[in-house]
């Protein structure tokens, strides 16, 4: 025990000695045009092929525009203040918070850094140095519902979510309304599996659902979505994927993906920041089908031909949603 105390002492001494000198390096190079420094705090891993993956893609797009970027994955709410403090006190100009679960914890700290602009994805607050951008999860769910209902032969479609959190609840609402929009008498089975990571649970639940007569199934559960589309592949049913890349493991099942590309939201926010639009902004922009954030991928041919009639139905629904003719009622 004494030894560990000593080790801590040594670590802290080393810290102060070695790195105290390090801070002086930064003062040079101030004359050049400094790149905008953008940081992003993510709630999950960037490899989830979904929410955090597209966020990371957005950051890469921002980097391609000449900004200096940094990000941190898997940040729990408890360490959020620490993360914000570190980035903001280090002089980052723009900090993205990737989820609305950060919102309340963040609002208490952002006041301390009036010179830093914060963007909350799916947040509810836009004032002072905080701007929120919404992502229309319901649009994604709506289009998944439209495709499922237009193609189903059994009249039963399924939705597999992870947990009862706002984005997924909105997605579920959208799914039900999308399906009913195409076929008012369609039977919708919507469940939550309780986990974003337990792929086996998502798969088994989906199999059970398909055996109950569902022939088109749509996931909205990040990592676990892979389990859902694979269940469809194994049972000969079909799936409407929630992101790109899911068809590689289920080529015969995934007919199309309804992509929710949040990278566009990040890029939009960055452009708005550069244009100075974020200062004094108190509105919350929600981006969905109309803004090109939610869109259909190409039809994946391996999963079988789709009649032109069905394609036309889906196409019309897409147009109706993007023109604002129909709206998801939350």
């Amino acid at each position: 025990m004494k030894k560990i105390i000593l080790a801590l002492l040594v670590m802290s001494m080393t810290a102060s000695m070695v790195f105290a000198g390090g801070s002086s390096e930064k003062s040079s190079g101030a004359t050049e045009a400094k790149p905008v420094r953008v940081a992003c705090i993510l709630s999950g891993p960037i490899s989830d092929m979904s929410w955090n993956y597209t966020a990371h893609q957005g950051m890469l797009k921002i980097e391609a525009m000449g900004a200096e970027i940094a990000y941190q994955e898997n940040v729990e709410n408890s360490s959020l203040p620490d993360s914000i403090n570190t980035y903001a006190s280090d002089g980052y100009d723009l900090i993205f918070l990737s989820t609305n679960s950060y919102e309340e914890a963040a609002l208490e700290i952002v006041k301390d850094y009036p010179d830093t602009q914060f963007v909350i994805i799916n947040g509810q607050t836009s004032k002072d140095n905080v701007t929120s951008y919404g992502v229309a999860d319901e649009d994604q769910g709506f289009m998944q519902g439209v495709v499922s209902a237009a193609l189903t032969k059994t009249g039963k479609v399924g939705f597999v979510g992870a947990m009862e959190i706002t984005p997924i609840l909105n997605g579920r609402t959208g799914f039900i309304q999308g399906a009913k929009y195409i076929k008012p008498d369609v039977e919708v089975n919507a469940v939550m599996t309780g986990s974003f990571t337990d792929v086996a649970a998502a798969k088994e639940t989906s199999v059970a659902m398909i055996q109950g007569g569902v022939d088109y199934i749509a996931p909205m559960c990040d990592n676990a979505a892979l389990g859902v589309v694979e269940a469809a592949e194994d049972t000969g049913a079909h799936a409407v994927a929630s992101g790109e890349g899911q068809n590689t493991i289920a080529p015969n099942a995934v007919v199309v993906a309804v992509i929710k590309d949040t990278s566009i939201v990040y890029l939009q926010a960055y452009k708005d920041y550069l244009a100075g639009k974020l200062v004094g902004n108190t509105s919350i922009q929600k981006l969905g089908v109309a803004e090109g954030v939610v869109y259909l991928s190409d039809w994946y041919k391996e999963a079988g031909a789709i009649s032109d009639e069905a394609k036309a139905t889906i196409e019309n629904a897409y147009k109706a949603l993007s023109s604002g003719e129909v709206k998801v009622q939350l």
Partner: protein
Amino acid sequence: MIETLSSFLSSTVRMATPLLIAGLGLVFSANAGIVNIGIEGFMLFGALMGCAGSYWTGSALFGALIAILSTMLFSAIFAYFTINQYADQTVVGAAINILASGITITLNRLVFEGKVPAISGFESLHIPFLEKLPIIGILFQQSLVCYLAFVLVPVVAYVMRKTHLGLQVLAVGENPRASDTVGISVKWTRWWTILLSGALSGLAGAFMSMGQVRFFSEGMISGKGYMALAVIVLGGYTAFGVLWASLIFGVGMALQFRLQVLNTGIPYQILTMLPYVITLVAVCGVNSKTRGPASSGEPYIKE
């Protein structure tokens, strides 16, 4: 109805198999006096290596072999620190879990470059005639690894009860000092049981990433390693005990998935508790007081 029943059976078997495989490995190491919570990490490591192996070689069989061998190697870390360095087993196990989580996530990004490639998984192998049986026919349409797991049960039981090797393991677990005096190498016995349990956990992990599904996903073991630990204790440290204990858990999982889909109105959080509650009730219902070997968790220091 028949279809529902047989799909329920199939689901039960699929969920029980990884616990069974890992549990059979634990029959050896646990009886030798090793308490290894690092099983979770072993399985995670095996799950990744199986997928990576299958991705590199294009063959599920080689994937499984790579998973087995590499996890065995990984388990040597555990064996070395607990046996040769006399370190506490639980703390090394905890370190193994943290390490495995770090290594798998890092490797996952390197190997698959953030994509989810299609890999070849364990194909189901239909056994002629038997597969045609009503209801239980589905049990004969499983993958090779699954059959292997069930075939291993009597084998492991025989080795543990009837052979010299098995008796040595039991002796080491029950009284290491006495075993040492009669010429059984405690060190070596514990070493090979850990390596064997490492190999089998690797296969169990590979079954999860190549049998239950066909891809690796970060953190996908989700506590199944701890369940394997529960299975060995619930099964009274015997092979057949492990079999029925993992089946109980499999039933719990399969039941939960089906209840979810029925939209019973029961909140999903309550349904997800089901397998754990069933296991709990089962543990309390077991009359024979399950007791581990006397030297469980104790490092053995030769004098």
